[in-house]
């Protein structure tokens, strides 16, 4: 059976330049970092770069990491900060091509009408997520995808819990409007006009 080392023990070894310890931390947290980065950036290559930079930072700043607590929250913070740098860079290059590509990916096995609806809904939701501000998107990802409580998010991002609540409120409001808008598009006015 492989021995399970604590995060703190591994961080101490990383401080001494131990790449095996870093590799163990990488195996433990790569999923969390990659998934979060991908959900925020919506781009696999960027998520890879963020994952790489995050672990280079673990190595570089190992002596500043508190070894008495789990590494997860520190990594979330680094990931969302790196993703923020990504989004400021990427904003200039935003293009609709990925959206068009996604339209071509079909689930395949359902009724055509439902497939179309589902695809359109998926599309609208993804665009609504993309349209959130970075701060709102991060809160949404950490809460809904990573399952962090509002308190945990506040602690991780070092912001007041009230700010987390308000970001989540506005993000949900925006998502709700996106869904309603899609529904209005799919149900033409004439449908109600058959008296």
């Amino acid at each position, binding site marked *: 059976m492989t021995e399970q080392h604590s995060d703190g023990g591994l961080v101490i070894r990383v401080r001494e330049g131990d790449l095996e310890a870093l590799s163990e931390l990488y195996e433990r947290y790569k999923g969390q970092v990659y998934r979060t980065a991908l959900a925020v950036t*919506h781009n696999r290559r960027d998520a890879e770069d963020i994952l790489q930079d995050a672990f*280079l930072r673990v190595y570089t700043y190992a002596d500043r990491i508190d070894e008495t607590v789990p590494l997860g929250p520190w990594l979330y913070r680094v990931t969302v900060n790196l993703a923020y740098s990504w989004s400021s860079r990427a904003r200039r290059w935003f293009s609709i091509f990925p959206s068009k590509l996604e339209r071509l990916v079909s689930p395949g096995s359902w009724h055509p009408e439902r497939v179309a*609806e589902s695809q359109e*809904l998926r599309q609208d939701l993804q665009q609504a997520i993309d349209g959130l501000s970075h701060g709102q998107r991060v809160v949404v990802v950490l809460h809904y*995808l990573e399952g962090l409580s509002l308190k945990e998010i506040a602690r991780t991002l070092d912001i007041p819990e009230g700010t987390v609540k308000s970001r989540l409120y506005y993000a*949900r409001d925006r998502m709700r409007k996106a869904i309603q808008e899609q529904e209005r598009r799919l149900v033409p006015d004439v449908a109600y006009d058959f008296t």
Partner: protein
Amino acid sequence: MWHMISRRKISEEYPTDELDSLIRWALRERVAGATPPPRVWRRINERLKSRIAVNELGLWERFCVTYRSVADRLGRGNISYTQSIPLSVWDRVERQNLLFVLAYQCGMPMLAAKGV
């Protein structure tokens, strides 16, 4: 089941839990099946190994300069890097240099690697 959610199920008011489910579904769709490819760790490993090599080279150069300076100061002429400095002259070495030389005299990882 996430994939079966459709607009037909969504009321105009969108109950909180249904909207929450939709957001979760959209996010899971966004990352579905995504795992980082092995090349990411390879790149990290390569970057760090080259960084370590550069650092060691820097240390090695600093050590050579320091050791020569100490040797000159002690008037010992052609001193070998592996040759230990007699205890009697340690107190004549500046503290900063002393610590540096001492660290290498004890561990000598670079000396061993270079076969000096």
